[in-house]
């Protein structure tokens, strides 16, 4: 968090607050109010939709809810105006959380489905309001409502309320953006499943972002009610708000906290040319067209483009494909590592673990124990269930049957993010970094949401340590796409380590590497174990397995067929048959 940014936002707000006393004509106050209004709507929308990627087409519903709560409470219940605003926020937030609680549980509802569902909500809410005494049809007049005297005129008071809300919204958007919570939201955006497995409580975070977004929209609605002073269902719940916020954020850049605000300012200024009658329709057509053009030609928005050009200047200077030699220098492991495991303590015990996918038995009744401090090699022909084992233990998939006991605790019912907190981490066979975060931020996320649960600044510092260990420190500001396969695999490794796991599961981390790179990786894995982490690694490259593993478990068709020390197991006839076939075993 940069206190300078906070200072600038507050200073801008304070400066604008002086406007009403400068004798500016009412027209400008209204124009600025509209600017503030759209800034609030676009920025608040972005907190959910831009940060997490769950694009909502229903922002109009929550805004409309806010408008009607204020109108209803102020006119029909006689509340003082300012009291209606918290109610507006609360009701809008409750609606959002209610919808989200159902919808976020269903993993199929992402992307397009979520967008369409939220669009439908708008019409449902409009119908309810239209048919009940809340509106009933004729609309509500707010002319008689008493405005709090905040400025020299009623116009000024509305202006100031709008300004206050806009400043608060931008501040909140910034604070979320730089917080640990925000990092979690962006991780959800890039790869929700991986984020969950790394310890981000995705369900809770999505609900929180949604609630925040809706509450702010509700307040904007409350203030807007008094601005337009006569509200009807068809006006309030039209397509204008959902369309505009999407457009403003897309234009400004939905991945940045200030993007939507910039988009809102640009569009509102453009809108000004089309304020009356027929032109309103043309204005809408223009909005639609601009949206199309922005998505086609400038999908990352104005701010996104600026940021990309800026960081390209930094990245292009160091196209480094090497992994630095981590300290101390690597040597090929000629002697097998001294077994240091504590054979009396079982870290993970799996019993009767079974998992089927559409009738195919990926894991059949797997029972094994992993001892503290050992390196266990998990081998077997293709399709034998090795990756499934890792997926089930880490919580990526639920098991059909069986127990997973980690440090004495039953894991089988726990969500993936809780298992990450308990100390289980894994890498993916095909690396799955968070594509829109730098290498440093990828690793920092694990520091924040892993076992240690650090704050964001502390996490960034610790991430550098892990990057040094993995030899990636010089590429810390690069994007994952700029890395080659070797570097990406090591990024996976660094990210898994940064969670400070007690159990680390590596899924074919060596595949695709050159022999020299493999040597380096083997040395690194040995060092990881020396630092106290228990390792399960799935591998095909036999010399790595024999060099590193204390014990080997062989899987075939989802079942354990052998277990024991490497040389003994690999000489076992059954195992060799599974690999080489009877004639050559």
């Amino acid at each position: 968090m940069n206190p300078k940014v906070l200072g600038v936002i507050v200073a801008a707000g304070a400066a604008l607050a002086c406007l009403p006393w400068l004798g500016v004509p009412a027209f400008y106050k209204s124009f600025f109010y509209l600017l503030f209004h759209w800034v609030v709507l676009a920025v608040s929308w972005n907190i959910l939709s831009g940060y997490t990627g769950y694009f909502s087409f229903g922002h109009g519903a929550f805004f409309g809810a806010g408008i009607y709560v204020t109108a209803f409470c102020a006119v029909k219940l006689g509340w003082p105006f300012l009291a209606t605003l918290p109610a507006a926020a609360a009701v809008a937030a409750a609606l959002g959380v209610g919808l989200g609680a159902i919808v976020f549980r269903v993993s199929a509802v992402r992307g397009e489905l979520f967008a369409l569902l939220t669009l439908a909500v708008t019409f449902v809410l409009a119908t309810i309001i239209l048919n009940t005494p809340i509106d009933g049809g004729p609309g509500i007049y707010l002319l008689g409502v008493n405005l709090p005297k905040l400025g020299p005129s009623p116009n000024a008071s509305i202006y100031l309320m709008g300004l206050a809300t806009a400043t608060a919204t931008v501040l909140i958007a910034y604070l979320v953006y730089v917080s640990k919570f925000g990092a979690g939201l962006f991780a959800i955006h890039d790869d929700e499943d991986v984020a969950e497995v790394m310890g981000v409580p995705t369900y809770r975070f999505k609900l929180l972002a949604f609630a925040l977004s809706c509450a702010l929209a509700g307040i904007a609605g409350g203030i807007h009610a008094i601005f337009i002073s006569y509200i009807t269902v068809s006006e309030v719940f039209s397509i204008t708000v959902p369309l505009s916020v999407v457009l403003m954020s897309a234009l400004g850049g939905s991945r940045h906290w200030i993007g939507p605000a910039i988009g809102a300012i640009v569009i509102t200024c453009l809108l000004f040319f089309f304020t009356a009658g027929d032109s309103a329709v043309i204005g809408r057509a223009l909005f639609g067209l601009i949206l199309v053009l922005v998505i086609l030609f400038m999908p990352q928005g104005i701010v996104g483009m600026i940021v990309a050009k800026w960081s390209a200047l930094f990245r292009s200077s160091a196209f480094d494909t090497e992994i630095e030699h981590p300290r101390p220098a690597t040597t090929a492991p000629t002697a097998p590592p001294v077994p240091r495991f504590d054979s009396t303590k079982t870290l993970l015990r799996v019993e009767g673990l079974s998992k089927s996918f559409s009738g195919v038995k990926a894991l059949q009744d797997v029972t094994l124990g992993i001892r503290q401090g050992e390196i266990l090699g998990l081998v077997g022909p293709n399709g034998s269930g090795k990756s499934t084992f890792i997926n089930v233990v880490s919580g990526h998939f639920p098991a059909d049957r069986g127990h997973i006991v980690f440090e004495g605790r039953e894991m089988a019912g726990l969500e993936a993010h809780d298992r990450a907190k308990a100390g289980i981490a894994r890498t993916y066979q095909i690396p799955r970094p968070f594509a829109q975060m730098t290498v440093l931020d990828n690793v920092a996320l694990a520091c924040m949401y892993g076992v240690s649960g650090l704050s964001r600044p502390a996490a960034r510092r610790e991430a550098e340590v892990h990057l040094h260990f993995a030899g990636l420190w010089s590429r810390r500001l690069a994007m994952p796409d700029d890395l080659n396969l070797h570097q990406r695999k090591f990024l996976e490794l660094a990210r898994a380590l940064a969670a400070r796991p007690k159990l680390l599961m590596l899924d074919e981390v060596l595949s695709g590497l050159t022999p020299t790179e493999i040597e380096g990786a083997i040395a690194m894995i040995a060092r990881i174990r020396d630092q106290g982490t228990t390792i399960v690694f799935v591998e095909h490259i036999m010399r790595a397995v024999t060099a590193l593993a204390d014990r080997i478990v062989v899987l075939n068709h989802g079942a354990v067929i052998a277990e024991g020390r490497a040389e003994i197991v690999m000489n076992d006839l059954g195992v060799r048959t599974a690999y080489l076939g009877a004639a050559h075993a």
Partner: protein
Amino acid sequence: MVVPSFGLLAQSILSGIFLGGMYGLVGLGLGLSWGLQRQINLTHFGFVFLSAYLCYQGATVWGVDPLLSLIIVIPVFFGIGVVMQWALARFRISAFNSLLVTFGLTVVIESLIQYVWTADFRKLHSAYGEIKFTVFGLYVPLPEFLAFVVSATLAVGIWALLRHSDLGKALRAMAEDAPIASAFGVNERAISLLLSGTCIALAGIAGAMFALTYTLTPTQIFSWVGVVFAAVMLGGLGNPLGPLLAGMIIGVSEAIAMTLFAPSWAPIVSFSLLILMLLFRPART
């Protein structure tokens, strides 16, 4: 709540069935394109309304029978669909971004419609609209009946095509695994263009039927989006009969709700059904 007479209930169920037929017709092209190409093309709605207004214009200003105007509408809209698909494929945009782009295009279409025809209500008065016949004491207006017949025929026809013809099998294979389908000789690009053209042509047909049956106003476009999507999702993507059957269920439920409560509660029905489906059968989509 008013307890209706049997006759009234039966009539409203019949209206519900016809309404469902309309949902099915509008949703037919949408569901095909979503299920077979993983594309949610919101412009579909824009084109339904555009076709409706064009038919209205043809009938009111030039006296052209709306069904005859289909002769022009179908090929033109087919061409538009092909061009749109070609453009979307060219830009290689993601599935989600295509949603945004088509959203933008729909807004453009809706605004243009409103600019040309204003927000006033427009009703197409045709010979068909005057004809009603009675079956078992129930009124059956011809336009609704005609729309239903067209909807059912198209749905069944396309279902049969998908099921039994080689082209249909190619489409289904492409939907599941396009690269492998291509490896067996399916010309993915050509078929994709053909499908998109057909979907927009279907939108054109739906528009003509829509014009015969309903009063037109531009802002309605977005309110239909919710219900039709619900029908498509409930009916199963890529299944041509799905939107029709689900549409009928929704239509009948809405009609019953309207008769028992008040007419304007209708949008709640489809949304509630959708939420219920998501809660209890989330894997469906």
